[in-house]
C-alpha cells in the first residue's frame, strides 16, 4: 500500500472506490446506486468547471470568510517552554467551524442538480447548523437528522438550525448519537432520492461523499500553506500539524496540501476521542486498533464486536463520537504517513482550560483533543519545531457541558 505524489489523496482510489485496495468503496442498497452515480458524474464535471470553481471561491471568500487567521499562541508557547505553538483559527469561518466548507459545496451541487431539498446528518450540530445556513442562503428546503442525545447536549446549535428554518428530525434508535443520525439520514435518502440531495457531514460514507467533503475542506490547507510561507518565508524544517479526528473532515482539509512532504519535515498527527478515563468505551478506531468493517457504505476501521455489530461509543465531544472513521485516514494510517493517537475526555477538558486561560481563543471540545496532544508533546520539543493546531470549532455550542464540568464557561 503506497501513497502517490502530486495526486490529491481523495483521488487515489481504484475503480471500485477503494483507497489502498481496501478502504472506502460504496456499500449501498441498489436504490442508491443511480443517485450516487449521478452525483459522481456531476461532481466530476463541476470540479473541472471554471464557472463552478469561481462560484465556490466567491462564496468561500465572501460567505465563509476565507482566509481564516493563522496565529502564534505566544503565552501558551512560553508556558510550555518547548516547541512553538500556532493555531489555524478555522472556527472564525462563518458559523463557527470547518463544516461550512462542505455544506456550502453541497448546497451549490444540490442547486446545480436542480434539486430543491437537502438533507444531512449531524453530531455536534455544526454540520447541521452549517447545512441549514447554506440551505437558507441558496433557497433550499432542509432537514437535519440528529441523535436525541446530541439534541440535548448541543442545544445552541439546534437553536441555530431551527432559526435558519431547518427541520430537525430527532433519531431515537440505537445510541441516539451521530451513528444513528447518519443511518436515518441514509434511509431517508433511500426513500426520497428522486428529489432530494444528501449531504454527508464528514469524509465518511460512500466514496463520492468522502471525495466531495475532502475537496471542500481542502480549502483549509490551501490557505495555510500560503500563510506559512508568508510567515516563515518557506516551509520550516519541522512542522507538526495536529488535528482532532472523528469522521476526519477537518483533519483531511488541514493536511491535504502537506501530504506530499516527507513526514520528517511535516508530521501529521490525528487525535481521536479516547472517551472518559474510567470507561471502556471510546471513539478511537484508528489509535485503539479496531478491525476493518463496513459502516454507512464504506470500509474503514470501525469499533465493532466479533459478529460485526457496531459498538456504542462514548466521548464528551459529540463531533468525535462516531464508531467509524474516514477511509482516507485508514489509508494514511496504514501507509504510516499520519500518526494517530487519542486524548481522553479529561485531557481534552484540561487542554480547554489551559488554552482559554492563556489565550484569547475558545476551541470547542473537538479541537481541545488536538490541543491536549500539543500540550503533551510541546515541552519535549525544541523551539525551532512548529506545532500547528487546527482550532476547527468554537466552544459556544459546548457552553452547557463546560459549565457543568468546569464550573464556569
Amino acid at each position, binding site marked *: 500500500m503506497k501513497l502517490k505524489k502530486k495526486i490529491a489523496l481523495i483521488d487515489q482510489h481504484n475503480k471500485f472506490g477503494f483507497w489502498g485496495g481496501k478502504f472506502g468503496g*460504496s456499500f449501498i*442498497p441498489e436504490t442508491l446506486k443511480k443517485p450516487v452515480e449521478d452525483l459522481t458524474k456531476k461532481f466530476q464535471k463541476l470540479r473541472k468547471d471554471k464557472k463552478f470553481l469561481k462560484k465556490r471561491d466567491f462564496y468561500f471568500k465572501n460567505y465563509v470568510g476565507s482566509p481564516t487567521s493563522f496565529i502564534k499562541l505566544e503565552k501558551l508557547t512560553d508556558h510550555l517552554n518547548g516547541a512553538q505553538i500556532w493555531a489555524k483559527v478555522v472556527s472564525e469561518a462563518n458559523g463557527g467551524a470547518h463544516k461550512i466548507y462542505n455544506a456550502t459545496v453541497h448546497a451549490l451541487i444540490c442547486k446545480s442538480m436542480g434539486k430543491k431539498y437537502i438533507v444531512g446528518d449531524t453530531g455536534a450540530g455544526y454540520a447541521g447548523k452549517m447545512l441549514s445556513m447554506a440551505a437558507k442562503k441558496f433557497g433550499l428546503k432542509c432537514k437535519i437528522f440528529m441523535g436525541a442525545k446530541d439534541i440535548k447536549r448541543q442545544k445552541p446549535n439546534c437553536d441555530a438550525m431551527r432559526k435558519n428554518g431547518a427541520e430537525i428530525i430527532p433519531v431515537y434508535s440505537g445510541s441516539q448519537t451521530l451513528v444513528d443520525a447518519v443511518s436515518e439520514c441514509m434511509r431517508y435518502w433511500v*426513500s426520497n432520492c428522486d428529489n432530494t440531495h444528501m449531504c454527508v457531514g464528514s469524509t465518511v460514507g460512500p466514496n463520492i461523499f468522502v471525495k466531495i467533503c475532502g475537496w471542500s475542506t481542502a480549502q483549509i490547507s490551501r490557505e495555510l500553506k500560503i500563510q506559512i510561507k508568508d510567515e516563515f518565508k518557506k516551509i520550516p524544517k519541522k512542522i507538526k500539524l495536529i488535528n482532532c479526528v472523528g469522521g476526519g473532515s477537518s483533519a483531511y482539509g488541514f493536511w491535504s496540501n502537506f501530504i506530499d512532504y516527507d513526514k520528517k519535515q511535516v508530521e501529521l498527527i490525528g487525535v481521536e476521542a479516547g472517551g472518559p478515563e474510567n470507561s471502556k468505551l471510546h471513539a478511537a478506531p484508528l489509535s485503539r486498533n479496531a478491525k476493518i*468493517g463496513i459502516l454507512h*457504505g464504506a470500509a474503514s476501521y470501525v469499533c465493532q464486536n466479533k459478529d460485526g455489530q457496531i459498538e456504542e461509543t462514548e466521548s464528551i465531544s459529540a463531533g468525535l463520537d462516531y464508531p467509524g472513521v474516514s477511509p482516507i485516514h485508514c489509508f494514511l494510517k496504514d501507509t504510516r504517513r499520519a500518526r494517530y493517537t487519542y486524548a481522553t475526555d479529561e485531557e481534552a477538558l484540561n487542554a480547554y482550560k489551559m488554552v482559554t486561560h492563556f489565550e484569547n481563543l475558545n476551541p470547542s471540545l473537538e479541537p481541545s483533543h488536538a490541543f491536549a496532544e500539543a500540550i503533551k508533546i510541546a515541552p519535549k520539543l525544541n523551539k525551532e519545531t512548529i506545532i500547528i493546531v487546527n482550532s476547527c470549532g468554537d466552544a459556544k455550542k459546548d457552553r452547557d457541558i463546560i459549565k457543568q464540568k468546569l464550573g464556569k464557561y
Partner: protein
Amino acid sequence: MSNSLINISFKNAKKENRPALLTYTVAGDNTKKKSLEILKSISEYADICELGFPHNTPIADGGQIQTSAYRAIKNGIQINDVFSIVKSFKKTKKNKPIILMGYYNMIYQFNENKFIKKCKESKVDGLIVVDLPYPENKIFASKCKKKKINFIQLISPTTSKKRRNQIIKDSHDMIYYISMLSTTGGKLKVSPKKILQEYTKIKKQNKLKNIVIGFGITEKTIKSLKKADGLVVGSAICKEITNSIKKRQNTVTNVTNVVKRLKNKIK
C-alpha cells in the same frame, strides 16, 4: 441451478396458478427459540422463508424491521445462532427453501468463504445482501453459485436499463424487485399497476428468472400484485410480532394467522 429448492417452489406455486409467498422474519426475534417456532409454523403457508440475520446499523430497513432486529440483538442473538436456527429448521422441513438476508459487514467479519461454507452446512438455499450491489457483488455471487447457493440480486425503480440488463444476466434463479423508493415497510406509494409494468419489463428480459416483488406489501395490498412470480412480506409480519408481544399474546399463533390470511388472498 434449475433443480434448486427455490426454483421448485416457484414451479409448484405456478402449478396452483398463484404467486409464491415469501415471508421475512428476523432470526432471534424475539428469542432464538421463538423465532424457530415462528419459522416452522409459518412455513406451512409460506413457499420460501427469508430469515434476517440482524445488524444494528441497518441502513435500508424501516421502523418495523429495525425494531425486530434490535430486539433480537438485545436478546443475545449471534451469527452462529442464526445458522443453528436454519439447521434445526431444515431437520423437519428439508424441502422448504431458506434465504438468509442481511448486511455485508456480518459476512465480512465472519469471512466470506467461511460464511458460504457455513451456509452450505446448514442447508441455506439463498442469500440476499442488502448493501452489496452489482458489480461489487460479482466475486461473492460467483462463490455462492459454485456452492449452489442462490445469490439474489436486487433491482429497484432507480436501476437504469443498462444496469438492469447486466444484473439480470448475472442473476441466479431469483431476482428481487424493490417496488418503490423506500426503506422496508414503507407505505405503498406507487400504484400496483405501475409496479407491475416495471416488473413486466424485467420479466420480459428473461422469462426463466423468478421475479419477486417486495417492500410495502401488506394484507391490504398483496392481492393487487398477484401477477408476479412471488411476493415478499416482511415488515407486516415483524409488526405483528411487536404487537403480539405488547398485548402479551401468542406470537406464533398470531403471526401464523397473518401468513395464512396473506396466502388466502393470493390463492
